[in-house]
């Protein structure tokens, strides 16, 4: 084939199709990066596994009465499902900072597509990766005495998808403003741990001191962890008293927030954060 025989390409004007192609390729790139990095898949499972099996086993010596005979590892399980997604999603969004440091972000930002397509592609990519990591945690259910019921698996997975979307969008908002990897890491560490500890991933959220109750209700992660716990616990055989104590649900001033509303809340927060991220990336020119 000689060069002269090939017609010159003409890039057509921007259209919905071209935006969708851009979203898809940015999404795909995130997946390629994830699956080519096996070490990362393993290391991001390590921390949740430590919490679940080491902390869960060790603490059960202290807390066997508080859980009405329920294994502490089983109690921690829904929280750890959320934690896995939390760490993976935030780490995924770090790729924006990474791309900026290594220049690739510029290649995307000068393409004749909307900034929103790039951000949406990144967000969906990060969310997919986080959800995939979440699936690996779901697979561990048997190890902590949680049954592999289809409704449980699907319910938890759906919530993980929502949560990973919200968290990736959140991390993108941070990544839009941060230009250095170290800063991003420090900043997310500062944000991720409070989000995790305040969310009730490790304890029931009723009957807490007022200050902690307030902080817990503000933490968006609460509204993803609580439905997960509800879905998991509905497949466990517990006495009504134990269920009431261990899976009390979230209340707003005495009103019990329905699980479905919690899920919608997570979705809405995610969409708002995505909007903010898009605005931030579009603002800079």
């Amino acid at each position, binding site marked *: *084939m000689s*060069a*002269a025989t*090939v*017609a*010159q*390409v*003409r*890039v*057509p*004007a*921007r*259209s919905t*199709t*071209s935006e969708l*192609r*851009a979203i*898809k*390729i*940015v999404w795909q*790139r995130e997946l*390629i*990066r994830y699956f*080519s990095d096996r070490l990362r898949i393993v290391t991001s499972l390590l921390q949740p596994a430590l919490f679940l099996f080491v902390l869960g086993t060790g603490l059960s010596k202290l807390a066997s009465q508080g859980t009405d005979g329920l294994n502490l590892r089983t109690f921690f399980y829904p929280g750890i499902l959320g934690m896995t997604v939390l760490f993976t999603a935030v780490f995924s969004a770090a790729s924006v900072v990474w*791309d*900026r*440091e*290594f*220049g*690739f*972000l*510029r*290649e*995307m*930002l*000068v*393409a*004749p*597509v909307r900034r929103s397509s790039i951000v949406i592609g990144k967000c969906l990519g990060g969310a997919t990766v986080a959800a995939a990591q979440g699936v690996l945690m779901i697979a561990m259910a048997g190890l902590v005495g949680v049954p592999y019921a289809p409704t449980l698996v699907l319910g938890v997975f759906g919530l993980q998808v929502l949560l990973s979307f919200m968290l990736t969008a959140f991390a993108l908002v941070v990544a*839009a403003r941060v*230009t*250095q990897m170290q800063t991003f890491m420090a900043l997310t560490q500062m944000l991720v741990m409070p989000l995790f500890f305040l969310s009730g991933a490790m304890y029931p959220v009723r009957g807490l001191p007022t200050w902690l109750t307030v902080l817990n209700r503000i933490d968006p992660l609460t509204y993803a962890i609580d439905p997960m716990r509800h879905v998991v616990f509905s497949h466990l055989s517990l006495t009504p008293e134990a269920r009431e104590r261990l899976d009390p649900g979230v209340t707003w001033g005495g009103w019990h927030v329905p699980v479905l509303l919690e899920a919608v809340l997570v979705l809405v927060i995610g969409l708002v954060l995505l909007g903010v991220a898009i605005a931030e*990336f579009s603002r*800079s*020119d």
Partner: protein
Amino acid sequence: MDGPAVSVSGLVRRYGEVEAVRGIDLSIDPDETFGFLGPNGAGKSTTINILCTLIKPTAGSARVAGYDVVHERDDVRRNIGLVFQDTTLDSYLTAERNLRLHAELYGMPRNTIDSRLRQVLDIVGLWDRRSSKVSTFSGGMKRRLEIARGLMHSPRVLFLDEPTIGLDPQTRASIWSYIRELREREHITIFMTTHYMDEAEYCDRIAIIDQGKIIALDTPHALKASIGEDRVQIHTADDTVAIAALATQFGVVATMSEGVVTFGVVDGEQFVPKLFSDFPVAIRSVNVSRPSLDDVFMSYTGTTIRDAEAGSVDPVGAGSALFGRGARQ
């Protein structure tokens, strides 16, 4: 293409108090290779960033490939290819995947991608390495791949911002041979910046830019012809006395440049013997050179490009912080 490939009028870009670009006008014809020559901080990158729609001008206007860089940003972007100073490749992906990613981002018609991929990789001699990860590439190969990627969507104007910066002389020469081949094979306008004087000679026309303004614009040949004089550099025992002696005895204005006494005379080879016959200071070495673009720059600015950089306060500091490594949005 009808009309000029690039036209700029009254372009100004301010960063706070600092004017990085202070009123630039120029017009570049289709298929021309145009060089923007000047020291770091002269406003080259700021201008190229405006033409690539990455930043907005403070005043003035610019059209690229017939489209306004502010109001028709996407149309400009569809029709330009960019090769930046810093690499913007995804080094985790293979060469081919980088190009395919680019094709998707630019919305290239699917049936054109395969043939175009082959074509551009052939131009830069990387077809055999298409399945290698970019992280295994040398600096020169990465630059070639970036040029291939910039060409992927058949842009009408290719912007090369310091295409050979940071490369060794041999690699620089090979990049240039690829760019020359590219000019023969594609109908394309090339707009490049450089601060290597010798590279500017590859261009059809050159604009010399200093402190945000174009101070000369012509073909390399015409620019050199406009200088006329030979450049003489002498290393002496006492430079101050030498400069004074040159002024009083020969009526020649000499300056210190690159650490040696430098001046221009009409016929250097004839001047040097006169210099040795009657000079109050010991002369340690003499160098006579025919005019080069370096001298052109010198004659227009009164300083060499290296001295200009050494003394530069980097007027685009704000700009590089915004678009340099670390914060390009």
